C-alpha cells in the first residue's frame, strides 16, 4: 500500500470511529459549489432526502412548501397535487414535476414478522435486496432490512410483479403489528444526497426531485407581477404508478392550457453499460428537450420554439429521445401540446442515480425562460 493511500485510509477510519472529526480534512474531490450551484444544492438536497413513495408523498410536498418563497400561496387538491398559480390572463401554461419516488408497498405480514412488499414503479428488485430499509407508516420511519434473495427458492414468473421481503427484526407478526406496520404502508431504502467530483452528485429519487427543485428555483426567480399570463406550477403525485396525479390536473384544467411542460428525467445512455443508439445526452451539457418518448411526441413547431428560446437566452439545451412516459402526456386528450423538458440522468431508478448540478441550474433557467418569455 502506498503511503498516501494508507494515510487516507487511516484518517478516514479514525474520523469514522470518533464521530467524523477528520472528514473535512480527508474528503477529496467535489469542487466548492459556486453560488449558482450552491443555490441548487440548498433546494435539491432536502428534497432528495425526503421520502415519498407513490401515494405517500406528503413529506415531499411539505418540503416543497417549505422551500418556496414566502409570497407563494399553494393549494393541495384532493389527489394530493400541489398547485402554485402565478400571474393572470391567457395563455395558461402548465409546468408539472412529480413528487413521488419508486419504492415498495407492503402487501402482507408473515407469522415471523417479516413483510411481503411489491414494487411501486419500475425497478430492478435485486438492487434493494440485502440492503437497509425504512418502513414508512405515515407517522414515522421504522428501520429494517430488505432480506437477501433466497437462493433455494424457485425464481418468480417472468411476468410477476417484483416482490421483496422486508425484515423489521421483530420475530413475530404480533410484534410487527405492535409497531403500527400495516399492509399499504411503503418501504424504501435510506438515502442521502452526496457530492461526487466536480459538479456531479449522487442520490436516490433524483427522478423527479430534480424537476421539483427546478420548479422551486424558477419560482424563486420569477416576478409574478411581471408575468403577462397565467403560469401554473404543479407538483404531482403518483406519476410512477401511472401518471395518476397529472390525470387529475389535466381533467381539472380541461381545454384551458395552451401547452404543458413536464419537467422530468431524461434517462440518458451516458454510461458504458448502455447502448448508444439513442438517449445520448451527456451529463453537464445542459437540460434536454425530451422530444419523443413512449408517451408523447413534441409537436415539431413547439420544439423549434423551445430551441429558439434557449438560443435567444443563451441557455444550453440538448434535444433527444428516450424511453419512459411523462406527466404532460396526461393532457393529450384535451389537445394540449406536451413540451417536456428534462435533464440527463444516469442509472435511473437505482439507489445511486447521478446528475450534474449544472444541468439542474440550467433546467431551472429554462423553466423560467419558458414561463416568462414564450
Amino acid at each position: 500500500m502506498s503511503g498516501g493511500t494508507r494515510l487516507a485510509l487511516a484518517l478516514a477510519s479514525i474520523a469514522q470511529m470518533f464521530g467524523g472529526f477528520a472528514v473535512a480534512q480527508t474528503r477529496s474531490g467535489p469542487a466548492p459549489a459556486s453560488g449558482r450551484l450552491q443555490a441548487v444544492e440548498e433546494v435539491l438536497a432536502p428534497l432528495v432526502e425526503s421520502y415519498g413513495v407513490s401515494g405517500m408523498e406528503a413529506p415531499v410536498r411539505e418540503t416543497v412548501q417549505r422551500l418556496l418563497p414566502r409570497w407563494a400561496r399553494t393549494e393541495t387538491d384532493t389527489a394530493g397535487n400541489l398547485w402554485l398559480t402565478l400571474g393572470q390572463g391567457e395563455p395558461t401554461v402548465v409546468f408539472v414535476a412529480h413528487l413521488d419516488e419508486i419504492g415498495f408497498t407492503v402487501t402482507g405480514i408473515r407469522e415471523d414478522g417479516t413483510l411481503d412488499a411489491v414494487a411501486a414503479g419500475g425497478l430492478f428488485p435485486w438492487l434493494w435486496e440485502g440492503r437497509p430499509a425504512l418502513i414508512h407508516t405515515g407517522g414515522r420511519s421504522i428501520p429494517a432490512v430488505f432480506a437477501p434473495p433466497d437462493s433455494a427458492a424457485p425464481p418468480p414468473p417472468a411476468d410477476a410483479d417484483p416482490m421483496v421481503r422486508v425484515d423489521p427484526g421483530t420475530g413475530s407478526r404480533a410484534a410487527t403489528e405492535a409497531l403500527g406496520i400495516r399492509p399499504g404502508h411503503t418501504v424504501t431504502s435510506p438515502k442521502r444526497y452526496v457530492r461526487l467530483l466536480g459538479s456531479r452528485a449522487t442520490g436516490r429519487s433524483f427522478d423527479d426531485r430534480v424537476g421539483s427543485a427546478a420548479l422551486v428555483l424558477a419560482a424563486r426567480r420569477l416576478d409574478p407581477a411581471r408575468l403577462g399570463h397565467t403560469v401554473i406550477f404543479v407538483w404531482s403525485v403518483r406519476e410512477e404508478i401511472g401518471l395518476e396525479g397529472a390525470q387529475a390536473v389535466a381533467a381539472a384544467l380541461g381545454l384551458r392550457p395552451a401547452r404543458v411542460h413536464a419537467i422530468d428525467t431524461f434517462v440518458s445512455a451516458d454510461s458504458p453499460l448502455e447502448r448508444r443508439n439513442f438517449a445520448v445526452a451527456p451529463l453537464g451539457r445542459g437540460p434536454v428537450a425530451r422530444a419523443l418518448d413512449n408517451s408523447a411526441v413534441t409537436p415539431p413547431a413547439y420544439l423549434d420554439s423551445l430551441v429558439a428560446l434557449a438560443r435567444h437566452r443563451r441557455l444550453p439545451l440538448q434535444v433527444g429521445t428516450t424511453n419512459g412516459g411523462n406527466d404532460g402526456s396526461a393532457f393529450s386528450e384535451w389537445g394540449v401540446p406536451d413540451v417536456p423538458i428534462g435533464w440527463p440522468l444516469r442509472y435511473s431508478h437505482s439507489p445511486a442515480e447521478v446528475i450534474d448540478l449544472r444541468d439542474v441550474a440550467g433546467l431551472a433557467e429554462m423553466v423560467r425562460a419558458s414561463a416568462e418569455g414564450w
Partner: protein
Amino acid sequence: MPKPAALALSLVVAIAIAGRLSAQSAEPALSDLATRLAAMTAVTGYEQSVMDSLVALLPGAVRDRAGNAVLVLGGGARRRLVACPVSEPGFVVGNVRDDGWLTLRRAPGRVPPAVERQLEGQRVDLFGRRGLVRGVVAVRSIHLTRGRGVPARSFTVDSAYVDIGAATRADVSAAGVEVLTPLALAKDPQRYGPDLLAAPVAARRTACAALVLAARRAIAEQGMVPRGESVVVAFVVEQELSGRGLATVAHMRGPFAETLLVDGGPGEPGGISRGADSLARRWPALGPVTRWALGARYFGTPVETTSLAGAEGLLAELGRWIGGEP
C-alpha cells in the same frame, strides 16, 4: 494537493485526539463501538487504517511487521492468544479509463459467493491518496432496457464501472485515485429491531469490538490475567487470503498454550458457536485452537445481522477467558 508532510501531521493530530478521546471518555458502550467498527472498511491487504484505530483504542498495543494490532496482557511465561480477524472482501481499482470511469479487480482471498453482485448500482467509497472519494457503480437504467432484448441481470466484476464524477483520466488522478486504490461498498450500519445491527461483516466487527472492550477492561483491572500467564490480544490481517496475520503472531509471539479465535459466522444472531479449528495443524505454535463465532443472519451480505445483546454475552465470556476461567 496537500503535501505528504501535511497529511502525516494530520494523521498525528488525528491519532493524538483519538487517543485523548479514548483515554478521557467514559468506556464506550459495546453497541456504539460495534457500530463504529462496522462502519469502517478494511479490504484484505488494506487493513491498516482500522489497525491504527484499534491501536489508538488499546493503550500499549503495537503494530507488528504483518500489520496486526497486538497487545500483551500480563507477563507470565505461559502464553495464550486471543485473536480477531479484521479483513473483509473488497476491490481495488484495476484500470482508469480515458473517459474517467474506473474498472475493478477483486481483492484476493476466500469470499462469500456473489459478493461482486452486491456492488451493482450502489454507492462505494474509495480510499485514494488524497483521502476518501465517493463513487457509484454503474447499473443499466431500467427505462433503457424495456423492449430491447437487453438481459436485465448480467452483472459481474468485469462489468463494474465506477463513476466518481470524473470526465477524464486527469480528473481521476487529481482526486488521488489510481490503479490499486482500494474500495468497498459505502457503509451505513443499520440498527433495527430490538437490538440488531446490520452491515457488511457486522458479526466479525462486533466480535472484534467485544474483544477490544474485554482487553480494555483487563488493562484497567490489572491482575485479571492469572499469575504466571500472559495473554496476547491480536487483531489480525488477511485472514481469508493466507492467514498471514495470524501466522505472524504465532511465529513472533508463540508458542501458545492455546489460541482462541473470535469471529463471526452464520447462525442465530448473537448466538455463540464454539468449535475446534484446523488452524492448529497449519501453525502448531498456536497450540490447540478454539473458534468462537458470533452468529449472524444474512451472513456474507451487506445486511449481515447480529445481535448486540448477544454480543454482550460474548464480551462477558471473553473477560472470563482472559481471566483464565475454563
